[in-house]
């Protein structure tokens, strides 16, 4: 493949992706002006593109319960430890940092409506920004809240507050 062909394929690939899926084939056919090799190359990439979401993505490992993942999160998240102490999230006043780990920080907080002490776990920013991770967190929350056991903490609430 010549460098010119390669960069042409790349340009059309990106331009096609910027269009709605149903318009892409027409766009590519038109843009390739009868160059069947070029058209096939671009069309093939567009066919594979939907499958690439998880392909060779960094941080693909299952982040649950991995000591390495904790280390990763610690390095990747240069958050100021305990920066939420003193903040108010809805009805919860965060008092002090209890612990940190790969999955975020846990604060001692007060539920101002019911005047009781609660623990609040806050996800690291790169988790909170990731919809899959947020969904997983919500799912785990649903599961935990359905459990009632003296050795499993009772879950009262889960939510998003100004991106946190």
């Amino acid at each position: 493949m010549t460098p010119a062909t390669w960069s042409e394929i790349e340009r059309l690939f990106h331009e096609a992706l910027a269009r709605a899926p149903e318009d892409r084939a027409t766009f590519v056919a038109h843009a390739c002006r009868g160059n069947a090799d070029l058209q096939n190359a671009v069309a093939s990439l567009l066919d594979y593109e939907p499958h690439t979401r998880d392909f060779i993505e960094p941080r693909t490992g299952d982040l649950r319960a991995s000591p390495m993942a904790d280390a990763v999160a610690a390095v990747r998240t240069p958050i100021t430890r305990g920066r939420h102490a003193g903040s108010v999230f809805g009805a919860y006043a965060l008092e002090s940092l209890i612990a940190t780990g790969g999955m975020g920080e846990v604060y001692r907080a007060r539920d101002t409506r019911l005047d009781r002490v609660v623990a609040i776990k806050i996800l690291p920013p790169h988790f909170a920004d990731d919809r899959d991770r947020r969904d997983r967190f919500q799912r785990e929350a649903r599961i935990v809240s359905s459990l009632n056991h003296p050795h499993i903490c009772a879950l009262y609430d889960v939510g998003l507050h100004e991106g946190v």
Partner: protein
Amino acid sequence: MADASAQITDLLLAWNQGDEAALQELMPRVHDELRRLAHRCMSSERAGHPLDTTALVNEAYLRLVDSSRVRWQNRAHFFAVSAQLMRRILVDIARARHKLKRGADATHVSLDEALAVSHQPSPALIALDDALKTLAAMDPRKSRVVELRFFGGLSVEETAEMLDVAPITVMRDWKMAKTWLLSELVRER
């Protein structure tokens, strides 16, 4: 261990100041640590455990470097070196394990196998390494983007800094490279 960490941190800082000899001294030490971690990760007892190259390089970093003394650019340099070493180590392990010679049969895998590169690494890793060589011949920067991101765990921003291009360029390179690599891995079974 604390002494070793201080020494390696010094080497990293010296290299980032432009001392190329420091890099020559740094590389074998990082290589040894990465190899040890990679072997443990890919050993048969951990079969089925996902391969997380990012975590491996991070663990090596945490063990070898005193992070309180380095800036993020130093860290990114460490990861960039590690990415290259990591790729070679993992592919060597994969090839040794599967005793596959490079060739038409070895270079292509099914779509499922390709997508499972981080779960059942060996065949897909070998295919990926071969495809990356082909990519490097056509478009060296894209191949480097993949190496830095997949084998080194660098973020888009860190990769952009290493390659001295805009983050948007890295994102476009990444998208194109990923798609092309996947199509290449599963082509002509």
